[in-house]
């Protein structure tokens, strides 16, 4: 067959031309971001609303927190997003000083499957740690009964559910268990994936939810936003002030507010087991990661304007999606951080 080189050449030129045109046509004011999947529902609404308001486009790829940190490290994105704060060891490997800005808070819910139980189950940290350590194996264990006076608990075994994939949710949950149980801290520790002493691993929130829904007597931890959408029974937890608190958006914001002093010292401070009468004990922030020195003044300004909008007007969109808005005190801490971007 005779190949028409001329034709190929013409098409090639045309394609390159189209690509160049498309590149030019893209608006100058656009930002790219990647990272955590947990806040994606609220972020995508933010980016939509922000685009309508300012015509700035923000492309966000929910690839996971780990990828978010990698992308900002390699500077392929304008900002990254992570459900867990970047630790000192990782910060040292960053090319420039990285700012970590809490955007919304979330809670981890202890969901269970006990069809006969009408009132919400009450649990405390040590009992939860013992369940996950495999030391409490039956629902009618003395420790659980003592927390639920007057409630008849079934004699069946507890089917423990946990995440099988590495996730920020597991990180928050294990950091809570480490906080309340020295034994957990020593034997298992805190991490996105840990060596679970007992239980069944489900992939993602939906996987754990499946374990809970399918097995009578099951107990597991899932994100508040996911649990609220899927109508689970969930437990009230004993907080640092000695009250049993059901998970809710308000109780999560209260936990963030109760941690203000710690956050003033280090914005990455954990907000599990926070002070405050109404604080829900398994809460955490999700963070946007941005370099203090962006190396581009226009871009820095765009990022600043967006972040200011997100921590003020944007917060109103959080609650309907079951994310907890930042308390006033944390908004002020964020504003200080945002000022430093240049």
């Amino acid at each position, binding site marked *: 067959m005779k190949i028409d080189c001329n034709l190929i050449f013409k098409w090639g030129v045309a394609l390159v031309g189209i690509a160049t045109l498309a590149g030019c046509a893209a608006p100058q004011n656009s930002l790219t971001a990647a990272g955590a999947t947990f806040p994606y529902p609220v972020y995508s609404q933010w980016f939509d609303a922000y685009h309508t308001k300012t015509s700035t486009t923000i492309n966000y790829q929910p690839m996971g927190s780990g990828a978010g940190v990698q992308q900002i490290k390699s500077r392929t994105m304008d900002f990254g997003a992570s459900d867990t704060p970047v630790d000192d060891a990782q910060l040292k490997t960053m090319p420039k000083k990285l700012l970590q800005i809490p955007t919304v808070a979330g809670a981890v819910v202890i969901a269970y499957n006990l069809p006969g139980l009408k009132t919400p189950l009450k649990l405390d940290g040590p009992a939860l740690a013992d369940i996950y350590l495999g030391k409490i194996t039956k629902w009618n264990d003395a420790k659980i009964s003592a927390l639920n006076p007057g409630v008849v608990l079934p004699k069946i075994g507890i089917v423990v559910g946990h995440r099988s994939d590495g996730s920020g949710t597991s990180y928050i949950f294990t950091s809570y268990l480490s906080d309340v149980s020295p034994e957990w801290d020593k034997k298992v520790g805190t991490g996105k*994936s840990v060596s679970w002493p007992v239980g069944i691993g489900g992939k993602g929130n939906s996987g754990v939810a499946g374990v809970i829904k399918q097995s009578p007597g099951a107990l597991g931890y899932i994100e508040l936003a996911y649990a609220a959408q899927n109508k689970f029974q969930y437990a009230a937890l004993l907080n640092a002030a000695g009250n049993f608190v059901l998970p809710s958006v308000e109780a999560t914001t209260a936990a963030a507010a109760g941690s203000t002093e710690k956050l003033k010292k280090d914005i990455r401070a954990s907000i599990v087991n926070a002070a405050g009468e109404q604080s829900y004990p398994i809460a955490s922030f999700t963070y946007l990661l941005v370099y203090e020195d962006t190396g581009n003044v226009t871009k820095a300004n765009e990022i600043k304007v967006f972040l200011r909008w997100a921590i003020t007007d944007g917060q109103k969109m959080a609650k309907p999606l079951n994310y907890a808005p930042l308390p006033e005190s944390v908004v002020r801490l964020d504003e200080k951080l945002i000022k430093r971007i240049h």
Partner: protein
Amino acid sequence: MPRPYECVKVLLHLFMNSQNQQHNTIPTERLKQSRFGNLGDSIFYSSTLIFATSVLVATLLIGFQLIKTSWPAIQHFGWRFLFTSTWDPVHQIYGAWPYIWGTLASSLLALILAVPVAIGTAIFLVELSPKWLRGVLSFMVELLAAVPSVVYGLWGIFVLIPVLQKIQGGIALSKLSVLPIFAGAPTGYSMMAGALVLSIMILPIITAVTRDVIANVPATQREAAFGLGSTHWEAVKGPILRSARSGIMGAVILGLARALGETMAITMVIGNGKDASLSLLAPANTLASILANQFAEASGLQLPSLMYIALVLFGVAIIVNAIARLLLWNMSRGMKHA
């Protein structure tokens, strides 16, 4: 009794040999001449050669890349990695044994469950089924192959596991529970669930290939067997399965390969446990499934360790294939000498 059987064997060998000779003599000469004689042919030859070698090159590159990225873990853990059972990302201690065990055990169990059904189905489709049913059944079997693996996983969670919970609950209450293979709590998410889902997933490929292999057994053999007075059963178990067996073995290898590498469906039902347990009721884990679970958020030595896991999976696949080839080779040699 053995007489007609022997005769069929002789006939079969005569046929095989004549076929081989035909194959060997004529075309090679012509190919050698034309390979360099004609421009079109030489382009054809070299392009197909490139395609064929690209498979080899890709495999080598995959192996190389896996060794390169897993090198920190190989240096740190060495061979111990294969035989230790701790996987602890917090304390950065990694060992792959539960995953190797889970992969091999679930795949072999799946084969044990699927192969008899697949071969039975294939024999029925080719030899015994009425024509109208053949089309319907073949279509159904091929349909099974087209179902995405996440759908098998969901089916496992919502249909299979509630059933297994009842069965396992019964086992746990009965005397069987003293046996190590039935130890543990009856949660449904278990090695048993994983093997069952896998067996259904590998059924279509084994059935389809076996069906084609049996259908390709020359009609003359069938006729010879019937001519010598064999019953249907005798014809199938004798000449037909005999000449099809290397092909059937190939079908089984294809099924095994699918089982070893299956990720999504099995991770949804196997419970992602951390121990290498003998019990069918206990949660287990596989190489592919821990890779899929932990790769995205891995940090530190976890990433090289996961690449080491991938390397192990690569190695397991190669070794299993090699063993299967060896069996195949032994089988065909045995047939020639018989």
